[in-house]
């Protein structure tokens, strides 16, 4: 709250207050089930600010055409915007080269691309892939399928009751057989921030490559792929205040260059005859077909928006909201928080004693409070914690303390209805 009055070090201008910033999001101005919408499902999808919505309208009103195809003016404008968006992504994650940032549909496609194009070429029978107990299904299933196909082995870093990875066990799992380590930067189910710098360093000592699933991280903290020395980093636009259908796979040039295309067709070729095709250069080799141009441009706009507020300020705001929400929920009898790692992003998984999470979710929705209820595509996490599912509130900087108070009030409604 104290941060509301500070000035922006770059511009010297007073920072906009969080309440002003909240007004940037038209969707939050509505009522749901006769209550003002309290949107706490940001780990699933974040909402889109007006400036990004305007970008979509502007792009479709003034530039829309196909990229890298035509000699006409609109095609050139669209191509310029598309290239500028890639450059914004490069700067945002501190990549060395824009061509290392491949536009994909989202995190899931990015991981599948690596499993297909890198995995099949470099992982053989007897090799090992290490994932963690905290992974989303998107960072489990592609590796399971790959292991089954090539006869490699999938190993899992265990976690403790707080939802933190067991780093001693990780050191034990690493060996000369380890080819790839695939871990989440931040757990979607519990909010745990994993020590990925250390995970990467240890893997590299054994000569293994590392893929980090950054879907839950990029909106909340600075990511510097060069400082991390990460080999592959993947994230989605729709968790970064941009639309669905766009995401980014970052890969080091030396790795991307030796990888075969994931999909093939137009845009990714240098020369096609019926006898032979040669593939074009990075990043286009991995972007077959007409890309999601508008969503890419919107992603660039979302990055501009985030940078106008500043990730450091966002991180502090979300830490304040998480601290407040954690204390508030702990004060409600019968509510148990799952995931109590020391380093957490703004995700709060919980259960209400005696009430199934889906019933919690339905009643909260009836009160206008949107949370996720379910296994969060992380069934192994649920199994480890011995719960069928959880309810999950996840916060973005545009949430406020009143949202959290509304969540708590709605939890008392749950308890009243179920008599617990």
């Amino acid at each position, binding site marked *: 709250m104290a941060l509301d009055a500070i000035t922006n070090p770059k511009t010297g201008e007073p920072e906009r207050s969080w309440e002003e910033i909240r007004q940037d999001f038209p969707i939050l101005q509505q009522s749901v089930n006769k209550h003002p919408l309290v949107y706490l499902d940001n780990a699933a999808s974040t909402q889109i600010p007006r400036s990004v919505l305007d970008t979509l309208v502007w792009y479709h009103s003034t530039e829309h055409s196909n990229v890298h195809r035509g000699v006409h003016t609109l095609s050139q404008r669209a191509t310029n915007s598309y290239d500028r968006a890639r450059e914004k992504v490069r700067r945002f994650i501190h990549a060395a080269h824009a061509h290392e940032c491949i536009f994909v549909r989202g995190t899931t496609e990015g991981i599948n691309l690596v499993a297909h194009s890198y995995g099949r070429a470099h992982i053989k029978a007897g090799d090992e892939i290490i994932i963690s107990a905290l992974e989303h299904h998107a960072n489990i299933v592609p590796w399971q399928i790959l292991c089954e196909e090539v006869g490699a082995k999938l190993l899992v870093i265990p976690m403790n009751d707080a939802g933190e990875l067991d780093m001693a066990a990780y050191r034990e799992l690493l060996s000369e057989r380890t080819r790839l380590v695939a871990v989440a930067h931040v757990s979607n189910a519990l909010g745990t921030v994993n020590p990925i710098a250390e995970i990467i360093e240890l893997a590299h000592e054994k000569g293994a490559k590392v893929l980090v699933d950054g879907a839950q991280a990029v909106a909340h903290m600075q990511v510097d792929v060069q400082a991390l020395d990460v080999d592959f980093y993947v994230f989605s636009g729709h968790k970064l205040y941009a639309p669905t259908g766009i995401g980014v796979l970052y890969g080091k040039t030396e790795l991307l260059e030796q990888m075969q295309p994931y999909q093939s067709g137009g845009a990714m070729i240098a020369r096609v005859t019926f006898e032979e095709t040669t593939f074009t250069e990075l990043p286009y080799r991995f972007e077959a077909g007409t890309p999601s141009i508008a969503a890419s441009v919107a992603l660039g706009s979302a990055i501009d928006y985030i940078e106008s507020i500043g990730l450091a300020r966002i991180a502090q705001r979300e830490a304040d909201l998480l601290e407040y929400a954690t204390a508030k929920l702990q004060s409600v009898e019968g509510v148990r928080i799952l995931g109590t790692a020391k380093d957490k992003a703004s995700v709060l998984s919980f259960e209400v004693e005696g009430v*199934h999470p*889906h019933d919690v979710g339905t009643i909260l929705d*009836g009160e206008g409070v949107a949370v996720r209820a379910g296994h969060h595509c992380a*069934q192994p996490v649920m199994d480890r914690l011995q719960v069928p599912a959880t309810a999950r509130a996840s916060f973005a900087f545009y949430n406020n303390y009143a949202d959290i108070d509304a969540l708590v009030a709605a939890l008392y409604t749950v308890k009243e209805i179920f008599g617990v």
Partner: protein
Amino acid sequence: MSDLRNLYQEVILDHNRKPRNFGVLATANRQAHGDNPLCGDNYTIYARVNDEGVIEEVTFDGSGCAISKAAASMMTVRMKGKSIADAEVLIQEFRDLMTGNLDVSGEHHLGHLTVFEGVARLPQRVKCAVLPWHALQAALEHKESVSTEGDHDPLGN
């Protein structure tokens, strides 16, 4: 609040807290498993059907939300002693109730099972209420399992 009260009626909450006919039926000659992979609800329905085609005993076990558990519990209470032909009528009527195709004030055999009417207004929860009914149908048809996803969608779509 009134909508929520309409959904979570006392009889539903009571069957959730104290499910009837809950447990494995050792003498069952029909059983089927039903699960909803997207939300994790999963139940097994056990039935003993005699030579005359009458459901002598029916029980369930498993876990899930209040809606699915109460639906399973109240279904088993209703089904005991019914012929398979009568059970099939009830299954169809309950399905119609959930898809909004049953005139609740008209002629039907559901009795107080119409307390689930409120669920029909929440499309994301309809699968919860229908799951045990679909599992029962599978058991009566000698199928081993059903899922709310894929080919065995309980709403038939």
